[in-house]
């Protein structure tokens, strides 16, 4: 490979350098002969590239059915219609965010793997999604992003992590027994209606709405605690006896305490003490100052368990799909950057290290600047791909949020084939997409001419 490479460069430069000498003695067929080789390609390029561009521009100036000339009306509508505007906005987000994220990930992965022994295995794993269709990737990520944490792995991980740091509520369904002096506060807490002071008799906080099998394994029969002179004590229990023989608001013999309930003593709207109930449901606030307190069961006891994130809801759907895009394309960026990385002269890095630069400084001041041409190529390439992103959005966004996840290429399909049947607008969107890639086209052509 390396040999042919240098040969190629000599070759390309020689004819330009000494045209007459080379041309005069050149062998080969007359010019018209090239047409034989080129003809099939020219027919296809004419039919699938040149003709469509011309026709689309022309068609975009006509109305939906193509019977009435409307001038630039389709283009005006494109920027004023709310649904195309959402598509436009999302496309901007995509084009700015996705190439950046993917390029950075590629850079990080390439640098991390550079000196690893099993780098090849890692690269294969990250690169593999490139071979898979967007449809399959879409199905894969629909599964990942399932809302129910029992089914979607993303939310399963999130809820597990969340519950590790913030234990989930023990009794989300519990509610106070009615008519015994307990009220539900607007913030979700359950409070005793009457204020109490240290030394008052044991408090009764009967609860209902919890099934027997939802009680923690350690729960024992509820007991009435001793009253204490300086403190406030009480019991939280499940005021329910199977068979209906229990009395409301009274601790019957078989009724169970509710362990782990967070009980708070509140004074002047401020929580001054907080304890958890024992296995038999009892709790005691010791050492409270004189005065009257409201005793309440904290709202956290009753909040619904954390259900993870609505990935595919209207607000997060675009970032979620960009995440899937990163999964597909990071390997591409990584491989290109790694190729660039391996062509950086070792001496440059070593020299910086010998001069006492830290690894970060080497990365920041030497590696990245030397890589910048490669990074630019990766970035621009991704921009071109992202601009016309269609499949992933079409597959991952559920029908109900497709309008929120809309992008130009998807809108173009929807308008002209997916039911809209407005080929004037569809052509205008296609022409607009073409106009958007013109800067990339110029970048590409100039880069090519410079290098030749």
């Amino acid at each position, binding site marked *: *490979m390396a040999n*042919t*490479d240098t040969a190629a460069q000599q*070759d*390309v430069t*020689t004819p330009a350098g000494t045209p007459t000498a080379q041309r005069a003695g050149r*062998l*080969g*067929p007359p010019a018209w*002969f*090239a047409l034989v*080789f080129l003809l*099939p*390609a*020219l027919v296809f*390029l004419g*039919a*699938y590239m040149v003709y*469509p561009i011309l026709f*689309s521009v022309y068609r975009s100036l006509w109305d939906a059915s193509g019977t009435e000339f409307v001038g630039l009306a389709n283009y005006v509508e494109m920027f004023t219609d709310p649904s195309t505007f959402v598509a436009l906005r999302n496309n901007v987000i995509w084009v700015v965010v996705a190439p950046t994220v993917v390029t950075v990930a590629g850079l990080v992965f390439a640098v991390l793997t*550079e000196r*690893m022994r099993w780098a090849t295995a*890692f690269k294969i794993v990250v*690169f*593999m999604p*490139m*071979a*898979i*269709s967007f*449809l*399959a990737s879409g*199905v*894969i990520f629909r599964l*990942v992003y399932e809302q129910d944490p*029992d089914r979607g*792995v993303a939310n*399963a991980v999130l809820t597990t992590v969340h519950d590790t740091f913030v234990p989930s509520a023990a009794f989300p369904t519990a509610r106070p027994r009615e008519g015994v002096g307990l009220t539900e506060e607007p913030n979700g807490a359950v409070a005793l209606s009457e204020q109490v002071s240290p030394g008052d008799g044991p408090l009764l906080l009967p609860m209902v709405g919890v099934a027997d099998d939802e009680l923690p394994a350690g729960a024992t029969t509820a007991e009435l605690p001793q009253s204490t002179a300086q403190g406030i004590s009480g019991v939280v229990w499940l005021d329910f006896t199977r068979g209906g023989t229990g009395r409301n608001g009274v601790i019957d013999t078989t009724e169970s305490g509710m362990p782990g309930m967070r009980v708070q003593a509140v004074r002047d709207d401020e929580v001054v003490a907080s304890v958890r109930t024992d296995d038999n449901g009892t709790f005691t606030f010791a050492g409270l100052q004189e005065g009257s307190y409201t005793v309440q069961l904290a709202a956290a006891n009753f909040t619904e368990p954390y259900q993870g994130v609505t990935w595919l809801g209207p607000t997060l759907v675009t970032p979620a799909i960009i995440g899937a895009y990163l*999964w597909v394309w990071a390997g591409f960026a990584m*491989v*290109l950057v*790694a*190729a660039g990385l*391996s*062509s950086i002269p070792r001496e440059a890095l070593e020299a910086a290290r010998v001069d006492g630069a830290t690894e970060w400084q080497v990365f920041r001041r030497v590696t990245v600047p030397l890589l910048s041409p490669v990074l630019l*190529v990766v970035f621009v390439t991704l921009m*071109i791909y992202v601009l016309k992103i269609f*499949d992933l959005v*079409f*597959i991952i966004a559920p029908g109900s949020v497709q309008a929120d996840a809309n992008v130009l290429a998807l809108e173009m*399909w929807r308008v002209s*084939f997916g039911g809209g049947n407005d080929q004037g607008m*569809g052509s205008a969107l*296609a022409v607009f*997409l073409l106009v958007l890639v013109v800067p990339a*086209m110029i970048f*590409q*052509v100039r*880069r*090519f*001419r410079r290098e030749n």
Partner: protein
Amino acid sequence: MSTREEAAPVQSHSPSAKTTPAAMGEGAPPRSVAARIVGRIGSGLMQFALIVIGVFWLVPTLGLFIASLRSPADNSASGWWTVFTQPSQLTLRNYAQLLSNDSFVASFWNTIAITVPSTVIIVVIASLAAYALAWLEFPGRDWLFLAVVAMLVVPLQIALIPIARLYGSLGIFGSITGVVLFHVGYGLPFAIFLLRNFFAAIPRDLLEAARMDGGREFTVFRRVILPLGGPAIASLTIFQFLWVWNDLLVALVFAGADTQPMTKALQSQMRQFGANIDVLASGAFLSLVIPLLVFFAFQRYFVQGLTAGAVK
């Protein structure tokens, strides 16, 4: 020329990556014990980070694979990871059902009937054109090639409406032929670009010698260019194969109900994602098995084609 410069290091990369640690060890100045411990910890952290990232990249595909091996009832009741505690959930029923589903099997054959011809046609047409652009002299050659470079980035969307109309009047809308020809037309700029760059790198002496021997142009093409251009043609074949195999949009617009490839057949099931998870998971997995096999078998050519196509 840059494309080959980019492609070349990729090929030689894995060996150089392997030799790097040793070279680093020899070349690095002697370091203190403390520095070495810090280095060890740093490299340990890096390895850990890589493992975590690797898991992130593997888990989604693993999830699809396991979901495809669970009954619809299990899939709607619990997550795929529960198979690790209840392996009895695993079943091949989804696949058995899918393979006895005539319309899915038909879509599999459609995918092949679309992918194989379009790959063959594009390789033939593009190598002829690339040879002309690289080695035949004719007026306007450079401009024509620059036009091809510019066409690399033309979005496919621009051709959908015009070609749909054209196909309508030719009577091939909804036919396999129409889909195949569209793929050829839209894939040509990249194919010509890739091959032309590679062909141009073939040493002039070899061609001149063949021509001197009185070889006719087609003979030179067949005897010199095609064998030497083998790697590039392999790259193009694989790349084009995967591109067409994985396509959804072209099929969505141009394929009919009985000519649709797997991607379109599966897409039509997406509307009831939860209810069709058995078909979708197993079908999606079947549809990605062949690309993955191609990828593993011809990895280097695939990477080469991809890097050469940067800024498509």
